[in-house]
């Protein structure tokens, strides 16, 4: 987020963090979705219990939580830019 106190006219790099976060979150979400795609393809859960057990995995829970953090952060930067 842009800090409005002590503004510098040039070379302030205000946008650098947003620029970087936009890309890091994008890469993370892509990796997550590829990972989930492969997982679902390999396990191929057919019923409720199978899906439930996929999301009972602690690693998948943490990754899914981080995915949504990345998703909201990714979207927030766009709104902030306008």
């Amino acid at each position: 987020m842009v800090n409005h106190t002590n503004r510098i006219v040039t070379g302030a790099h205000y946008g650098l963090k947003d620029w970087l976060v936009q890309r890091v979150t994008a890469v993370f979400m892509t990796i997550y979705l590829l990972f989930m795609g492969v997982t679902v393809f390999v396990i191929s859960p057919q019923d409720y219990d199978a899906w439930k057990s996929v999301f009972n995995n602690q690693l998948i829970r943490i990754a899914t939580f981080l995915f949504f953090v990345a998703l909201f952060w990714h979207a927030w930067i766009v709104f902030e830019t306008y």
Partner: protein
Amino acid sequence: MEVNLQNKRPKHLDLLKIKQPLPAVVSIFHRISGTLLFFPGIPLMLYGLQMMLNSQQSFEALLDVLSIPVIKSVLLLSLWFFLHHLCAGIRHLALDFHIGSALAQARLGSKIVLISGALLTLLIGIAIW
């Protein structure tokens, strides 16, 4: 007397008449798809996840809803928006590394993005229908 200037040039920016270059089409569609994926995309995805994992009954209710052809088509359209957003985003990352930023390559790149987005949607669509 009036000098006959290049009269065929449009006097106004008529959005229905001007033809955007391909990279511009990819770019505006990147924004539109991103907006739609945010809303209504995120709420619908969260609601779907909740239905899928809440209970046996809600899971079956979700399957029933997803088997309706209209809903399936909307889902496929959303998938296309997402895949286009993904492909355009990957192109963006390539451009950050100065890959394909010259005019000819930029046009080729946007063509690849448009085609691969549609093609991936078609393939996944066939797989899940």
